[in-house]
């Protein structure tokens, strides 16, 4: 039984977390441009969002950037996690240290470090600079997630597989990958969300020719509150909700 004070306190904090988003969603349906009074239900702002082609271009850019970055980070990170788990090699500690440092480095430091590197090497800011940056900050998260799942594998399985004549590649495809599948899925979802939402690093390494959604929203928000943006943000929040529920459902099913 929860004591009343405790549930009261929890409710208060949750209200603090949800009221801003809740307000945003409610007022995205309000039939008025500036007023906070209720002027009736409308879907006009959503219609405006759907018809804004520059917005959709930014969404499309963000989407395929996140997809590309997730795929690459998943590939590199998973292979690394498996090697870290199975083999002893020189520089293993250094590699783990490097991964740790990248996770905790403030985003802004990574953003400008990459900006300097790209400008000195002559790489134009655009899709590729964003892609490299996103893969770099996603890799450590994949390694951490996949590695912690890999640790639960019984090492005897590998001995059994090689006794039965499986090659290393067969072991990889038929044993390791299926066991790691839940970790791969949650790693992919996390990477996608990180990449799709990132603003600090992207702000420094994006160029005018390739606009992505967070930067676009940041630019619009700088000009002030507007109802169309309310609708867009509500849509994004709804999308997030669906993705999180999906990932919960996937992990829960795997546990059974």
């Amino acid at each position, binding site marked *: 039984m929860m004591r009343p004070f405790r549930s009261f306190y929890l409710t208060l904090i949750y209200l603090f977390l949800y009221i801003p988003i809740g307000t945003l969603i409610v007022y995205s349906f309000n039939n008025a441009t500036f007023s906070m009074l209720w002027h009736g239900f409308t879907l006009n702002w959503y219609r405006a969002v759907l018809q804004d082609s520059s917005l959709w271009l930014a969404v499309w850019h963000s989407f395929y950037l996140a997809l590309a970055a997730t795929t690459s980070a998943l590939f590199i990170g998973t292979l690394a996690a498996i090697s870290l788990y199975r083999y002893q090699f020189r520089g293993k500690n250094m590699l783990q240290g490097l991964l740790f440092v990248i996770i905790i480095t*403030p985003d802004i430091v990574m953003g400008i*470090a990459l900006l300097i590197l790209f400008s000195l090497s002559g790489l134009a800011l655009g899709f590729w600079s964003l892609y490299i940056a996103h893969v770099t900050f996603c*890799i450590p998260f994949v390694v951490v997630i996949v590695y912690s799942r890999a640790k639960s594998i019984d090492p005897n399985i590998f001995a059994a597989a090689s006794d039965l004549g499986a090659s290393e590649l067969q072991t990889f495809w038929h044993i390791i990958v299926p066991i790691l599948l839940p970790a791969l899925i949650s790693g992919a979802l996390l990477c996608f969300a990180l990449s799709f939402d990132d*603003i600090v690093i992207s702000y420094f390494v994006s160029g005018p020719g390739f606009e992505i959604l967070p930067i676009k929203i940041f630019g619009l928000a700088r000009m002030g*509150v507007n109802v169309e943006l309310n609708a867009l943000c509500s849509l994004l929040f709804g999308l*997030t909700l669906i993705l999180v529920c999906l990932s919960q459902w996937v992990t829960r099913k795997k546990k059974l």
Partner: protein
Amino acid sequence: MRNKFQYFSVGLITTWLCIFGLLSFLVMVVMSFLQHDPDHIALWHFTLQNYEDLFDPIFFKIFIKSFYIAFMVTAACLLLGYPFAYIISRLPERLQNTALLLLLLPFWTSSVVRTYAMMSLLKTKGLLNTALLSLGLIHEPLQILFTNTAVAIGLIYNLLPFMILPIYVNLERFDISLIEAAKDLGAKYTTIFRKVIIPLSIPGIVGGCTLVFLPAMTLFFISDLLGGAKALLLGNLIEDQFLMANNWPRGAATSVLLTVIMAIGLLIYWFKSNKRINYDAAI
């Protein structure tokens, strides 16, 4: 075959991280020692000027202000987050998971979206003012948006979970029998809290504070959206040096300083958690 797989996967990640992690960081450090030149990125000429600049009164003021705001935000997150983490760590396991999911749900959406939501809540004709006015608590709208208070609220809103999670993880592993032992020995609840629970959750507290303090100095977009026009945070200073003033070496020096602050925080954390491990070994 084993070796091929291993060489390929280890080589791939090592190459990637060495180029885009390590090398880019080293280039930034080198850049911080180069001379500023308005026509080029920098002049190939060693100088300590950029670090001396950081002690210039104008920049120094921004540091102090940024430190002050980060400190207040961290303190507020700790005061709000600790009881929250404590309460959920004592819930039954099923409820714990739901509580955590509810906590993290808003944080899966972009921080710009969340900051924008805060912006529309705090504006002069926003919900907060409308509600306070209609309740008769105030007689004219409060000017919160575009003040330092708004920046602090925005930072707390964005960073609270980073305080709660490490403390929760720490408290969740907490051995409940220690509390019972203290009770048996006649300790009052406040004494138990002060002498048993708080000291044992120090690693979580330090971890949470590090995770909140650093971003609180650097999340420039929050102060861009919620604060006034002035550069307020260390992050705004860096942003300005790169995108407006075009003084990359100075921006690089500021980032190096930030990294040093981070390293100090980590050392404290490492030291504290090592002490914790020794303590465990002692019992």
